[in-house]
């Protein structure tokens, strides 16, 4: 399936949000995730299966003033 993550199109096999984060070596505790413009709570990462056409934003804290 085709998924857009942080503006980049990627081809992925069916998986959950948690599996995606793990495959990207992202610590789920350190990020916030938006799935199709809605915040996906951390508690839902394991239970949410991604679908073709999903748009995902994965953000974290960086240095700033």
């Amino acid at each position: 399936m085709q998924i857009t993550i942080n503006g980049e199109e990627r081809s992925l096999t069916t998986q959950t949000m948690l599996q995606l984060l793990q495959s990207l070596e992202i610590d789920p505790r350190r990020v916030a995730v938006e799935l199709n413009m809605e915040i996906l709570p951390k508690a839902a990462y394991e239970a949410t299966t991604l679908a073709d056409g999903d748009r995902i934003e994965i953000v974290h804290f960086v240095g700033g003033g």
Partner: protein
Amino acid sequence: MSQNDKLVIAGREFTSRLMVGTGKYASNEQMVRALEASGAEIITVAVRRVNLDRSKESLLDFIDLKKYTLLPNTAGCYSADDAIRTCRLAREAGMSDFVKLEVLGDEKTLFPENEELLKAAKVLVKEGFTVLPYTSDDPIMCKKLEDIGCAAVMPLGAPIGSGLGIRNPYNIRIILDTVKVPVIVDAGVGTASDAAIAMELGCHGVLMNTGIAGAKDPVAMAEAMNLAVRAGRLAYRAGRIPKKLYATASSPIEGLVE
């Protein structure tokens, strides 16, 4: 003395009245040393996309969350919608309700877009955020932000990163008379005396990033700012002498040899 003079924001107490940003340092190690030297307890962070190719790096690897309270900002947001979205993401990432709300109007001045700021503040306060808004040094705006339910107001001293200091101390004084929430000068501080001046006016705190990170020796400047904020606060509480046009001698007139 500082034990009884805590900064209170939304019911939470802080000893340090200096808040520092985590941007623009030469390295994470320098940032850590500067934050330590500053004595800050509240530090700002930005919310940005994870770099998918280098996702192992994280600012939080360098920040001791037991020591610091994170204040996520909405830097780079030019609309209420963007700022609201960023705050919701920040809360989800950090599990804290504190946000520094910035809605910018223009890239050159980075002055706030006050109409959009009010829109965003209304929504965010309703959603239970503790909103600390970056705004102009306008008492009327500050009163509106207080009325909406913001936990503090953060009028700029001068444009972000300009180092021009407190451009309008009279407005800042009027703001202090106008609102009951903490007044924290945010933006424009260039050197230690700027921070001291803000505190001497009666401000409850000062927030800065470039003033420290952009200095030739950020760690030394962080220490200077730490001292300046404490000195300014002490001077304010000590009650300065009035300004007079003419002199009043400090030594007695009697007893001079003739």
